[in-house]
């Protein structure tokens, strides 16, 4: 047996740099904890942010369309974009740990290490087209995420974590089976070769059954992660049980990572004109937006409402994947980058109002009543929250309107007028539940019996995060164009 010769340059180790940086950061935090255990969370938060910052820098310096490490790492525009969004999203959400009140999760330095490990997992999901690596990355991130949720250490958090975990395990089974089906047809677990084999075998009889079957199994797994109905069942419960900061995080970053995977996987199908998958995805997307909107209408708790709303948004965006146009994919990233800020703001506002006694409701921590008359108690906060709500509802000129505009435009361009109208009308339904909060805040008489519960958890860091989110939401018009340019360039460069 001869020695294996590996050309070191061909490994293209640089492609791994962003992930390595995150990993290093996590390990450093663990080591610091080992050395000195009574350090404050501010240190870890800062370290985490710095790590992510460096990772962003590393990501930006990558060359587009390179592969590394035996083809397992794929750096194209989409993976750069995905990683950037993941890193930026994480960076925006982690300062939410700097609260006024003490919470269980942030008392562990491991929390921040796990957080970085999770980001590390997501990065691999975005930066690979190898199903194995994607799966391992996914599980790394998911296991860390389950733990992070449970670490909030409330009864509901535990319930949330176990629900998420169990459904995640089922989804993992589907993912494995789906991958097996695809592997069975193609003998490959790498998408670039999978697509080639698909192409060459399209004429074979009954080939469609395993190909589409694999896709369906994958849809279950992906649908679970991006919370499509009916694989969404965990979402509202987990959002409710988890801390608001974690819930907000979950509504963005894991979904972006999974959306990238979905893009790669289903993009492959679209490329081959396997319309069935396209229709299935569109149908699923419509079901998701519609039903999620309906359920969000009747919620009594703002956090739960936001959970359903983010399900609905995910469904809305999913249509963009089914279009298989550059504009569609770009609009997806566009949407999520704008959604990130708005949802950051909305959940951060909830997080600010986190206190330790459920005053208004036995179970709900953020019932609508809690915000009644907020305009009197905290006018600026109320206005900002209202702006986030309007943005989520897609009222111009706030940021998410532009996202909606691009997505709808992409849908219209591809000729799916009926879909566009359904999505538009869904937005009209959605307006109701966002307005409901605005109405509570602005138009209902205030509840004087309680102190400033809407301020309970306020701290400078949180204010800054909210301010940033509000700024990004209001002033969107000024950066939409460069952002869109950037995204379109990157997406276009990867051949989507």
């Amino acid at each position: 047996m001869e020695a294996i010769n590996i050309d070191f340059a061909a490994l293209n180790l640089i492609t791994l740099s962003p992930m390595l940086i995150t990993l290093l950061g996590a390990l450093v935090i663990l080591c610091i904890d080992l050395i000195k255990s009574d350090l404050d969370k501010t240190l870890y938060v800062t370290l985490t942010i710095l790590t992510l910052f460096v990772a962003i820098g590393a990501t930006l310096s990558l060359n587009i369309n390179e592969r590394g490490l035996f083809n397992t790492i794929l750096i194209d525009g989409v993976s750069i974009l995905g990683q950037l969004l993941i890193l930026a999203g994480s960076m925006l959400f982690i300062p939410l740990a700097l609260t006024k009140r003490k919470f269980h999760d942030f008392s562990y330095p491991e929390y921040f290490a796990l957080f970085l490990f999770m980001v590390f997992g997501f990065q691999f999901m975005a930066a690979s087209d190898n199903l194995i690596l994607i799966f391992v990355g996914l599980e790394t991130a998911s296991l860390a995420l389950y733990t992070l949720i449970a670490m909030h250490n409330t009864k509901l958090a535990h319930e949330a974590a176990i629900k998420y975990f169990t459904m995640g395990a089922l989804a993992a089974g589907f993912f494995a089976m789906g991958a097996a089906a695809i592997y069975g047809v193609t003998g490959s677990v790498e998408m670039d070769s999978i697509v080639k084999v698909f192409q060459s075998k399209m004429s074979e009889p009954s080939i469609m059954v395993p190909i589409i079957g694999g896709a369906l199994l994958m849809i279950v797994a992906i649908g679970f992660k991006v919370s499509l109905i009916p694989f969404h069942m965990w979402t509202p419960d987990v959002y409710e049980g988890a801390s608001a900061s974690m819930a907000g995080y979950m509504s963005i970053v894991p979904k972006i990572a999974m959306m990238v995977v979905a893009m790669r996987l289903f993009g492959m199908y679209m490329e081959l004109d396997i319309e069935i998958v396209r229709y299935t995805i569109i149908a699923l997307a419509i079901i998701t937006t519609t039903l999620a909107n309906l359920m969000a209408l009747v919620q009594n708790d703002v956090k739960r409402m936001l959970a359903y709303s983010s399900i609905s948004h995910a469904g809305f965006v999913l249509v963009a994947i089914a279009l298989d146009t550059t504009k569609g994919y770009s609009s997806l990233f566009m949407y999520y980058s704008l959604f990130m800020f708005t949802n950051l703001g909305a959940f951060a506002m909830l997080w600010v109002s986190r206190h330790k006694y459920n005053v208004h409701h036995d179970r709900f921590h953020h019932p609508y009543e809690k915000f009644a008359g907020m305009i009197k108690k905290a006018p600026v906060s109320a206005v900002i929250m209202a702006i986030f709500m309007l943005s989520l509802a897609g009222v111009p000129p706030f940021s998410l309107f532009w996202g909606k505009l691009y997505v709808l435009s992409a849908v219209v361009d591809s000729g799916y007028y009926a879909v566009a109208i359904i999505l538009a009308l869904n937005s009209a339904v959605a307006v109701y539940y966002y307005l409901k909060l605005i109405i509570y805040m602005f138009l209902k008489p205030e509840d004087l019996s309680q102190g400033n519960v809407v301020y309970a958890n306020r701290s400078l860091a949180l204010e800054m995060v909210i301010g940033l989110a509000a700024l990004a939401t209001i002033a969107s018009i000024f950066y939409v164009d460069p952002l869109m340019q950037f995204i379109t360039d990157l997406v276009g460069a990867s051949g989507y």
Partner: protein
Amino acid sequence: MTITLTHYLVLSAILFTIGLAGVIRRKNLLMLFFATEIMLNAANIAFVSISSFINDLSGQMFALFIIAIAASEVAVGLGLLILIYKKYGTLDLDKLSTMRG
């Protein structure tokens, strides 16, 4: 009679479904986790059999990683179960339905 790949795959499919049935049937969380293991094992059988029939190693690699994943899941899952058991005193998932609607 030769055993073809299809035999293995059908076995895998059946096992997967058994696992699935277990997942949707079980109310005890611990036993539910057993069922998820079955599903992963079914996938393993599929991967390994395909791998060996087409003489390709990626399938076996996949199976290997699935085993690793299964192990990790057990670790985290058990940790969660312990938490739940401490808080709720039971592993019956019917008791875990505070959050609904």
